[in-house]
């Protein structure tokens, strides 16, 4: 689960990670009063969306007066911000963060992330602050400092020094940096983060280190023990259909194609999307109803897919193991009778109780095309949309 910069910085401050003073603002009037409260100029007006690259897209601007804050806030609120992470459709800006401007001496990169290969927490740092770190890793990997922390031991003093000296910080800033990094590690572990990224981390003209940006991602599987963090979820940043699907524990992702699909199991669902593409059509979604879905879940899955106006045909691909084919077929029939089927539907079913499942579908009186195997299903679905 991602959160906004202003929310991340609020949490950072609670963990004694230094951040500039700032205030969130949801209207032009709030932006102006936030700037007034900060009591000095320049201030930075920052668009709050769940995507990086905001600066280059025009979502981060400096204001030197109250009038300028008012103008910029008016321009940004409601604008469609397009960055390399939003896709061409961009995101509508609904929230701003007004922050006190800083005297920057140097910019660095600092992040903590879960390393799946080594099962450790990795601290990554670089003198190339503000840059795209993937690009730095690809072109000048020697400019990235990497330290692996054993989660049973926690971060050690020598590791903090390794990063601090590696960044060639002035000695006056070293103590502050060790404290910042140590606090950041505590924050990461205490809140089940999968990523904490500060880009840039700055050294101010008076040798203080400070997080100028903040990107935080939490492990969705761990939110059961962080009820307080759940309040930070921003549904405005999520696709409404995905929010709807999540209510029924369906793994659903909205894509831009025209073939809706319903599959049981994540791996088979991905493979089914690939099959649709190979056949010359495009998947409209990823939908995994789970290995042991109920008839009710199947019904909701079908309803959500059919509500998507770009869907011109639906492919149902089920390998019945735990989820029996007859249970699945009943869910499909119930949903189809309730919502009405307006597009061609191709069904490919295999596994436990498949004969019973096929009988239920064929006796339903619904206009469903049955496919004998995966290749047949691909052919039929492509013919339906092309």
């Amino acid at each position: 689960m991602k959160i906004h910069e202003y929310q991340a910085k609020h949490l950072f401050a609670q963990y004694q990670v230094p951040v500039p003073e700032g205030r969130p603002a949801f209207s032009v009037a709030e932006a102006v009063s936030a700037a007034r409260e900060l009591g000095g100029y320049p201030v930075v007006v920052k668009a709050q969306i769940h995507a990086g690259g905001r600066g280059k897209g025009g979502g981060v601007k400096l204001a030197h007066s109250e009038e300028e804050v008012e103008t910029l806030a008016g321009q940004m609120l409601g604008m469609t911000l397009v960055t390399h992470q939003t896709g061409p459709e961009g995101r509508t800006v609904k929230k701003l963060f007004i922050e006190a401007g800083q005297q920057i001496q140097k910019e660095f990169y600092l992040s903590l992330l879960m390393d799946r290969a080594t099962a450790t927490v990795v601290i990554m740092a670089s003198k190339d602050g503000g840059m795209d770190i993937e690009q730095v890793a690809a072109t000048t990997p020697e400019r990235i400092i990497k330290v692996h922390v054993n989660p049973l031991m926690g971060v050690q003093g020598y590791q903090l020094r390794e990063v601090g000296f590696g960044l060639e910080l002035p000695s006056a800033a070293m103590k502050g940096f060790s404290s910042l990094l140590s606090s950041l590690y505590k924050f990461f572990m205490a809140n089940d983060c999968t990523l904490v990224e500060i880009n840039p981390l700055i050294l101010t003209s008076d040798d203080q280190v400070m997080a100028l940006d903040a990107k935080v991602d939490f492990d969705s599987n761990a939110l059961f023990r962080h009820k307080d963090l759940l309040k930070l979820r921003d549904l405005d940043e999520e696709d409404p259909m995905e929010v709807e699907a999540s209510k029924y524990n369906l793994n659903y992702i909205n894509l831009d194609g025209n073939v809706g699909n319903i599959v049981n199991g994540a791996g088979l669902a991905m493979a089914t999307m690939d099959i649709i593409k190979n056949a010359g059509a495009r998947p409209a979604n990823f939908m995994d109803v789970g290995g042991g879905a109920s008839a009710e879940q199947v019904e909701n899955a079908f309803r959500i897919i059919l509500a998507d106006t770009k869907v011109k045909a639906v492919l149902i691909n089920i390998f019945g193991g735990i989820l029996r084919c007859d249970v699945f077929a009943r869910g499909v029939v119930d949903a189809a009778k309730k919502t009405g089927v307006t597009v061609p539907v191709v069904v490919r079913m295999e596994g436990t109780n498949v004969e019973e499942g096929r009988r239920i579908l064929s006796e339903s009186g619904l206009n469903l095309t049955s496919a004998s195997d995966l290749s047949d299903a691909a052919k039929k679905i492509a013919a339906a949309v092309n």
Partner: protein
Amino acid sequence: MSIFVNKNTKVLVQGITGNEGSFHTRQCMAYGTRVVAGVTPGKGGQAMDGVPVFNTVAKAVQETGADASLIFVPPPFGADAIMEAADAGVSLIVAITEGIPVLDMVKVKNFLSSKKCRLIGPNCPGIITPDECKIGIMPGMIHKKGHVGVVSRSGTLTYEVVDQLTRLGMGQSTCIGIGGDPVNGTHFIDVLSAFEADPETHGMVMVGEIGGSAEEEAAAYIRAHVTKPVVGFIAGLTAPPGRRMGHAGAIISGSSGTGEAKIQAFKENGIHVCENLGRIGQICKETF
């Protein structure tokens, strides 16, 4: 022969009295698996279908000599259950549970490094040696005894592959789902090296998906150490970057973990790549 499990494996089930636990325990027993004990804290002294239930894994191992554990406990208690089994001396732990926090698994991995045991999963369908032992939730009837080793990060996608193999008359030595989480116990390489050493396994199928770099590492390993033919498949070539595709581990982060890179690594290392799932059985038939 087979790998990791056979007809002598004695299984205990953690979470045996829960809905899923009791349902799948019965399925495993019906398949012929020797389930010797169950564990549910607070229900020690009871029995389920004649299987004695204990309060702790240590007690269950002591009383029954179980050497493998099948775990069905809910995600908040998953890490604890794995460590309890490891501490009790169980040598094979199969964790079905989906949704264990990744930080818990990171701690478990480091804890297990000092123990002599193998963890399969979590978030996996388990392991089956056809006609001998099924420790997991896969449908038993699609399997057939034979000489193809199957290893996969997925559940139903594995069933699809196994079903095609069986229909074409190719049985399996052992099939293992290593799970869809970013941090898991057994990796592709562990399974591939065991298949290579197993005389009953004549060829292998490796089913990967987007996210991480386990497939690339396995491909390099195959080139250096595997002499038997390997057929490879990758799911998720059409998946958008930055989105978690159902499995916690199936996510393309920036430029890492893409399906294209994995297919490329397969091709460069002599693996027979299947690009159309509908034909994977046929490709295996031609290759093995």
